């Protein structure tokens, strides 16, 4: 009756934790961390892999029967580059899912809203399930939903900054208004940040740096798994955030009779 499950483009997922694959000390550690995290969606930077080569170091460590491989267009500086990358991945046999990243600035890697929108329009028409990485801009989120994106992925803080949910006020609005799942992506540096995002009502989180660069990535993957699950339980349990104050008088509704 009151459903609470993660469905993206018609596909159901149990885990609300998505993982990135960059910055791990080795592909073996990455594979172990993925397994430990319980994730079902794993994103891979197309610029880093050789999608045509089954023996590619990263790809060969990701079991595609277990994970939805979500190619991302990181490194693309404009719509044209992003579209080309996505099409290459599909031509090489990837499922038509793409995490759309258009980040012209090479330092903070902040997403370009105009180019992201343009690329999304083209890719949606092309039949892709598009998951765009965006700044926490509620109007942009609605515009992307309107043209057929299957999620929106607002950032909590700049990529790799580990600073947490700095854009909370705007993310709250995006969550309230969105008809598609909201995935908080970037900035999540600690399990408590991931838990907070889920408690706020985000449908999922995407984590990379915090796990990949931890002293023990596998242990950290477990920490994130539990943090996200624990927040899901809290949401289902119904969190009381404000206390009811007892009040005997009824100045506002005193005019009502039974």
């Amino acid at each position: 009756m009151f459903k609470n499950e993660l469905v993206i483009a018609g596909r159901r997922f149990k885990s609300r934790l998505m993982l990135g694959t960059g910055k791990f000390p080795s592909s073996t550690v990455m594979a172990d961390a993925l397994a430990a995290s319980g994730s079902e969606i794993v994103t891979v930077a197309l610029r880093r892999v050789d999608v045509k080569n089954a023996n590619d170091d990263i790809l060969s460590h990701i079991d595609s029967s277990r994970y939805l491989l979500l190619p991302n267009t990181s490194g693309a500086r404009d719509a044209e580059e992003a579209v080309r990358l996505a099409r290459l991945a599909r031509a090489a046999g990837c499922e038509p899912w793409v995490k759309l990243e258009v980040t012209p600035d090479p330092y903070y890697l902040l997403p370009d809203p105009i180019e992201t929108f343009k690329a999304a329009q083209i890719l949606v028409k092309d039949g892709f399930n598009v998951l765009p990485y965006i700044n926490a801009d509620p109007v942009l989120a609605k515009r992307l939903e309107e043209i057929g994106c299957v999620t929106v992925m607002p950032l909590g803080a700049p990529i790799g900054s580990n600073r947490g949910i700095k854009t909370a006020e705007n993310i709250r609005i995006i969550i309230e208004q969105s008809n598609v799942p909201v995935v908080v992506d970037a900035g999540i540096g600690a399990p408590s940040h991931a838990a907070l995002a889920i408690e706020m009502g985000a449908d999922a989180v995407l984590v990379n740096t915090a796990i990949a660069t931890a002293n023990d990535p596998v242990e950290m993957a477990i920490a994130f798994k539990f943090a996200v699950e624990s927040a899901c339980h809290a949401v289902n349990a119904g969190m009381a955030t404000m206390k009811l104050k007892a009040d005997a008088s009824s100045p506002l509704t005193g005019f009502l009779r039974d």
Partner: protein
Amino acid sequence: MSFISLLKEYNWDDIKKYIYSRTYRDVEFALSNSRLTAQDFAILLSPAAEKYLEHMAKISKEITLRRFGKTIQIYAPLYLSNKCVNSCLYCGFNAKNKIPRKTISFATIEKEADLISNEGIRHILLVSGEAPKDVNMEYLKKTADICKKYFSSISIEIQPLSESEYSELYKNGIDGLTIYQETYNRETYKKVHLAGKKSDFDWRLETPDRGGKAGFRNIGVGALMGLEDFRTEEFFVGLHAQYLMKTYWKTHIKVSFPRIRNAEGGYKPDHIITDKNLVQSMLALRIFLNDVGLVISTREPKDFRDNILGLGVTQMSAGSKTNPGGYSEDNKEGEQFSMEDTRSVEEFVSMLRSKGYDPVFKDFDQNFFSGVA
């Protein structure tokens, strides 16, 4: 996702059972959430929540003040026609009722518009029965042209139209649409809408979608209170409003709470809606959807309208007549229903001011429409 498919996820009887089996503890938890789910909303509509009405009123008042300030938007209806091809059991315009029928002429529209605007009204709601022969596109466009001279915002509450017709009306200066589903219960809907185009539940249900796609600035929805169990009914109203707010995000969505009034035909509602029931519905909706507009018309009596100020309401009609030609001719023949609050606009507005509320007559401008100025 369309609202029809969303509606299929919720079974009427299950929701009703859920609402009626809530406990005080459920209500306390729902009220302590800062972000309400549809489930919490259902809880606030429960009999158990009645005990927490004062608390809900405080929360609702605080939210309304923060989002809307101490303002009430004022509008008035202008009845164009009481002709109707439908036979809705509860309505005075039921085709089977023997009442004098008419569609007012453009000269009368001009006269009525002049009188209404002289009272200060700038937001007009054009109302008619389902009379497509008389109230057709040509008639509506001409009416809009006349009304533009007197009003800054024009809404319609007429038979459902197609998306392209709505687009055309929007281009001609009509910025708002009101369309009540009457009831979200398919079986009850069938029982009270025996004949005519209105018997098509889905066509009516998707009317706000067609209006949203056409670009209307405001869309009003609601259920006719009294046809069904109000708690379950208002749950679906809230769900519909939320769906519309999320889907047509550039449109302001508002909800009305019309209670069945005495009307020609003598229909007696199955469910009596008390003041308390109406207030609970309004408060629950405000706490669930902080930004939705809440409308209370002159169907409601004077004292009730005065008392609910500040509890969540944002728009109120004033000085209304519900028969075609009612402003320029002094008779009540052919009314849709009988009015409760019969105060003039001036009297109503001075009551608002005395309670510290600002009556807002104009908050839209025809100049937003390209090519109109």
